[in-house]
């Protein structure tokens, strides 16, 4: 009896506190709080967006936790957040486990570049199979004839190659291994693609800074980092031969070109890998990063805010990209995403119909 009374009192107190907090929040401003969680790779641009968007629409506030793609997928699946974010597309099985249909909305593009440490800083070029075989541990010396073949005139040292990869699970690793899986059958069978994989050789460094730190301190080392990180830190970013057979310098433009190249065969759910796309100017190691939202929104006000924000992000939001060294979406892809955003509904009624 006593227990029940105490419980009753406690519930009362909590209820009162809740009422108070709701009343308080409401009286100060009628702000709508949108909660999101997921990928770390786009976190800088997302926080810039959320900040800028508050100026466009002061009635909405975003709270984004960059807990990683895995956490983002889990939380949107359990509906503990209003939107998720992931660097890798969800698998069919993961989509099936979700309580409703989930949309993948591409937001920005990222690219991954190789980085290496050789005395004299020669400007190297890589063919796709070379990168795969180096990371498989099949090419072990820098003066291997196959490396020399695509780098005529470069003096290559007789030095062992030390492979450095990311030790933490990351979207960067996903893009890198996705690319290697596409260009090498052996890689696909032995290792495969994922945010973490079972590396055949090499050392693990934590984060972009861990990889580049180890590469810098070990002569003969080769690793991979995000394009933005390489540009900011003036790391040598070698050209890679793309699907069209052209050697392409990694850059923001060539990353956007990769998405443009893939635009023709874009599947309607955008769960597409952009690595090794067609196109003469396309840098082959690039990828979308996605926001995950339910097709049918659970809350009318939040749903409306969500679609408005998405619309803004793929149009006006794209101009904040270059400052933060992300690649903007090509216009033909943005057009296709518009159609997707129009399909987002609340109780079956499209939320963007007013436009």
């Amino acid at each position, binding site marked *: 009896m006593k227990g029940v009374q105490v419980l009753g009192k406690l519930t009362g107190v909590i209820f009162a506190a809740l009422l108070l907090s709701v009343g308080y929040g409401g009286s100060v401003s009628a702000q709508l709080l949108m909660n999101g969680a997921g990928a*770390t790779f786009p976190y800088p641009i997302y926080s810039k967006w959320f900040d800028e968007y508050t100026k466009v629409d002061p009635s909405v506030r975003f709270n984004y936790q960059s807990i990683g793609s895995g956490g983002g997928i889990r939380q949107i699946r359990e509906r503990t957040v209003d939107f998720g974010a992931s660097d890798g597309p969800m698998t069919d099985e993961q989509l099936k486990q979700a309580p409703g249909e989930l949309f993948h909305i591409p937001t920005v593009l990222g690219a991954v570049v190789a980085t290496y440490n050789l005395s004299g800083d020669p400007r190297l070029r890589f063919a796709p199979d070379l990168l795969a075989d180096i990371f498989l541990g099949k090419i072990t010396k820098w003066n291997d004839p196959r490396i020399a073949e695509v780098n005529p005139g470069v003096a290559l040292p007789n030095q062992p190659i030390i492979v450095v990869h990311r030790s933490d*699970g990351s979207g960067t690793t996903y893009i890198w291994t996705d690319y290697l899986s596409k260009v090498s059958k052996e890689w696909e069978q032995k290792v495969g693609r994922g945010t973490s*994989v079972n590396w055949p050789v090499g050392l693990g460094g934590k984060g972009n800074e861990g990889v580049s730190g180890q590469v810098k301190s070990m002569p003969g080392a080769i690793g991979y980092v995000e394009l933005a990180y390489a540009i900011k830190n003036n790391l040598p970013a070698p050209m890679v031969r793309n699907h069209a057979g052209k050697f392409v310098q990694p850059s923001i433009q060539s990353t956007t070109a990769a998405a443009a190249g893939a635009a023709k065969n874009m599947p309607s759910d955008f769960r597409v890998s952009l690595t090794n796309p067609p196109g003469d100017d396309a840098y082959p190691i690039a990828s979308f990063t996605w926001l995950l939202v339910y097709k049918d929104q659970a809350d009318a006000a939040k749903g409306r805010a969500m679609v408005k924000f998405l619309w803004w992000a793929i149009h006006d939001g794209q101009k904040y990209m270059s400052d933060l060294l992300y690649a903007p979406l090509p216009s033909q892809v943005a057009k296709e995403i518009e159609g997707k955003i129009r399909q987002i509904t609340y109780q079956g009624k499209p939320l963007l119909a007013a436009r």
Partner: protein
Amino acid sequence: MVREGGAAEGLSLLHLARSTRKTGRWGDRLFRLLIRAAALALLGIVLGLVIVMIRAALPSIRAFGWSFLFTSKWDPVAEHFGALPLIYGTIVSAVLALLIAVPLGIGAAVYLSEVAPSWIRPPISFLVELLAAVPSVVYGLWGVFVLAPWLRTQVQPALGSTLGFLPLFQGPPYGVGMLAAGIILAIMVVPFIIAVSREVLLAVPNAQREAALALGATRWETTRLAVLRYARSGLTGAVLLGLGRALGETMAVTMVIGNRPEISASLFAPGYTMASMIANEFAEATSDLYLSALIEVGLLLFVVTVVVNALARLLVWSVGGTVKAVRE
């Protein structure tokens, strides 16, 4: 008037005393309840932790069974997980750390409590506490930028050319690897061992020392027979505290160990620890089985910590027992 007032005052004091005695009785009871709750809460937290981890690890336990403990393949893509290299890496790096840190730490503590002139004690003790307060990521950075390059260019080539016939010191010198992890851990653990050991040694009654000296013991004999032996269990506690930190340390180790889930006899080779694996892969673990496997690693870390601590205590007890037996 005055006397009356005094009487009233006396009466009210008596009341006060009675009432405090009453609340005192209640206070005692309340106090006893509170501390009991504190102790039970601790038990509850540990129990809750174990239950939650076991439940979350169940899918992985069902999928892999005992092979989780005895296989070495960690493949998130194929969803095949074996934690043996992680267990190996955790124990080897911690043992390596203690091999370096225990003689250093206890030696320094003996110096501080037995030998050092009194003016030098406060600055050294202060430095020790300062070391203990440095965040582990700072040790990690130092490990990446100073220790690892130094190991790679100086120490490992020298060890390889002199002791290279031992499998312990073979293979290419990367700098990062098991040796770097052991050294970093030793540096992180030493301040704890020094600080606790010093307190333990200072608590040894002076009569112990005086008695030994009076019997004609040298300073070394006094320290060994009268002080260290007396303080044995306290010193064990200091070492176990260090061991606990070494087993669970994550950030600094991740930065210098090379993060390769492989068992190698060489200390130059990269390794992996359980704590590092969890910290590295937890955030991006997308599938349920993968996440469950990582939680099972956490459970294992818990078990390994308990087992290693228990073994260490058993070891000390058994040694203590034989000493007594010999004496008798």
